């Protein structure tokens, strides 16, 4: 097999996995956020509408998480083999949370007598899954113990003040995305309530981003060097500046009564966070331990999958876009459920 000089398939695969993670956060973030907001939405038509606004799309959104996991196994098997045991507790808890919330979509309609119970399961599952995603990221960033080709730490190594902070931050972030989604897709009392939530969670998220950023710099001299040393700092300093500007634009668009734009400004905030994350860890796949090249699958695996991804990802994006288009516009009270 000959690959043109200058093309590094490992970097391409890192970009594809990165893309899957971005797609996951963009797509599943808001629907998990609606679960997080569920206790703040009164039972009855408003809850039904909130649920209906995501019922046709949540399954597709969650598939990006499967691609993230499956793609990591396929493209960086060593990273998959180290990270998943290291984050055993948060990941298993996340999966159980996703089970609870996933079945609630159908079950709450099948059993009016226990609807309040399934609504609680939806809220608990969504919040737990989100918190554990954030905590897992924190646990990974603070460094995991690796000996040879395996994880060598304990079950609770991930648990720290930092991982609690990243967990809470992600809950705030997804709640913001959920509120912005409801502002876009619903009307009346639910929309008004969503705007109020969006205002609240916007500030909270900005504070959380600041706290996580500072705490990350304190985790390891390596992280600090990537952000603060010259000449990097000329480039990296743009990220916090852009974050503040984006937040301002988010609030301006919210107060002007825009329905769609705040959602995209909130997504832009997430985009900046992920860019910041990239600056912190590049070119590692297990931060401070294993680089993407050390973890990469052999060339034959990379090429075979690249053909599949190259053909399928554009097709997937096309029909996913079509599915969103079918359910465009405001969800009415009756819903399409």
């Amino acid at each position, binding site marked *: 097999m000959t690959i043109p000089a200058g093309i590094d398939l490992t970097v391409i695969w890192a970009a594809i996995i990165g893309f899957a993670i971005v797609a996951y956060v963009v797509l599943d973030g808001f629907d998990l956020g609606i679960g997080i907001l569920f206790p703040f939405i009164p039972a009855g038509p408003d809850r039904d509408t909130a649920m209906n606004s995501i*019922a*046709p*799309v949540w*399954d*597709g959104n*969650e*598939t990006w*998480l*499967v*691609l993230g996991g*499956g*793609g*990591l*196994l*396929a*493209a960086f*098997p*060593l990273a*998959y*083999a180290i990270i*998943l*045991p290291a984050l055993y*507790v948060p*990941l*298993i*808890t996340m*999966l*159980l949370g*996703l*089970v609870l919330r*996933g*079945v609630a979509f*159908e*079950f709450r*309609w*099948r*059993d*009016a007598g*226990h609807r309040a119970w399934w609504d609680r399961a939806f809220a608990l599952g969504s919040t737990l899954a989100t918190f554990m995603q954030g905590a897992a990221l924190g646990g990974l960033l603070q460094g995991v113990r690796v000996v040879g080709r*395996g*994880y*060598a730490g304990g*079950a609770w190594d991930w648990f720290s003040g930092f991982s609690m902070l990243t967990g809470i931050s992600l809950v705030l972030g997804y709640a913001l995305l959920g509120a912005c989604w409801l502002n876009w897709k619903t009307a009346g009392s639910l929309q008004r309530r969503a705007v109020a939530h969006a205002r609240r969670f916007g500030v909270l998220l900005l504070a959380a981003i600041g706290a996580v950023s500072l705490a990350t710099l304190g985790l390891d001299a390596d992280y600090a060097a990537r952000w603060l040393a010259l000449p990097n700092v000329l480039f990296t300093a743009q990220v916090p500046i852009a974050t503040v500007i984006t937040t301002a634009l988010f609030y301006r668009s919210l107060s002007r009564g825009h329905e769609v734009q705040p959602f995209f400004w909130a997504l832009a905030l997430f985009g900046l966070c992920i860019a910041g994350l990239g600056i912190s860890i590049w070119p590692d796949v297990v931060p401070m331990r294993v680089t993407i090249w050390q973890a990469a*699958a*052999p060339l*034959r*695996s990379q090429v*075979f*999958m690249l053909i*599949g*991804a190259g053909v*399928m990802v554009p097709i*997937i994006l096309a*029909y*996913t876009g079509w*599915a969103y288009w*079918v*359910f465009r516009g405001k969800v009415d009270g009756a819903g*399409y*459920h």
Partner: protein
Amino acid sequence: MTAFDLARAQFAFTVSFHFLFPAFSIGLASFLAVLEAQWLRTGSGVYANLYRYWLKIFAVVFGMGVVSGLVMSYQFGTNWSVFSDRAGPVIGPLMAYEVLTAFFLEAGFLGVMLFGITKVGRRLHFVATLAVAGGTFISAFWILSVNSWMQTPTGFEMAADGRFMPGPSWVAIIFNPSFPYRLVHTVLAAYLTTAFAVGGVGAWHLLRDAANPGARTMFSMAMWMAAIVAPLQIMAGDAHGINTLAWQPAKVMAMEGHFQSHPHGAPLILFGLPDQARQRVDYAVEVPKLSSLILKHDPDAPLGGLDRVPLADQPPVAIVFWAFRVMVGLGLAMAGLGLWSLVLRLRGRLHASPWLHRAAVAMGPAGFVAVLAGWVVTETGRQPYTVYGLLRTVHSVSPLAAPTVAISLAAFALVYFAVFGMGIVYLLKLMARPPQAHEATLDGIPIRSAGITPAPALDAPQPGAIGEHVA
């Protein structure tokens, strides 16, 4: 118990629960596609109503399949990380293809299939149904290729550090020797599982109201499947067994309970109590030379026994032996019921035979039990290896402490029994309701329209789209 035993218990528990749902949804998606095609072709309202009736059930089954499947895709790493590191370069890409070509397809079109009935045209909606049905099959294709590669690994090169690397041809990996057999056998099993579930539901309602057109149609369709597919499945199973004999003889020895080699024709042990410690089957009821006849198509052909396999390399015989008998027994019973229904159909009494209907109700869950039993045969029969003959299960496990895995196993048991237990109750409630002439679509509140619609002629053709409420 060690962390290793607990990890095996956890995988067995979660995969068994998971497998029930796709075994149903693969067949159900195809059934829905046939119903919608029939409705588009004939315009007969009974098909539209049956589509809506089974769509509500499909939504619940599919949801449970998605969430339990998500767990599986992470468990390879959380609990079997050494296996993932070693075999990842070969099986990882196949699983990535499953996500890219199947999961997205199913999930992307599921929303339109469930909720888009009144939002897109009827042909486009049919395309969505076909996409979901196609997705379930493609998913089975890839994951069974992975599983088959673990059973009969080919097309790989061994790296110096013990990792499996892909060889020059992916075709040799994907189409490994047991894959075609396992794919046919498993997909037919999924179709049979659905046929007997649908047949059981239809029969249940026929026993109460033999004139219900929905019940009549679904029962008739299910019994056609039983009569045609059950015999095909026996042939496919036979071919799969012969393939297994060629590639994994120890598994067949365990299935047959053959601890001894038989140079002049091996008997078929119908029943008995395998005693692996003493390497013999107690109280065996045997038919002389029949095993050689089935497996070699020659009554005098020699067949090796587990006396040629060191104890450390033998699968757990009793589990494989009994699970195999459960699967085969149910398969024969299915074929018997199919034949019975065919005879009564030819006599024009398919819908007027309460004993057939009672038998069909009793056999409603048979497919699920048979599928699980078959899965136990093939997976337990692969032991003590994850990659057959090359990587031992005990060397595949993650470096986790026993208490960690014990707690996660307990949490899975708690959540699965509570959540999927309730889900199964909801499925039974949906199935207990007879199909209506004006079956509601997937509305928020089930049977919302059932109480408010008048009951006109039961199978009146419906002019509207498949999802429109015709009042």
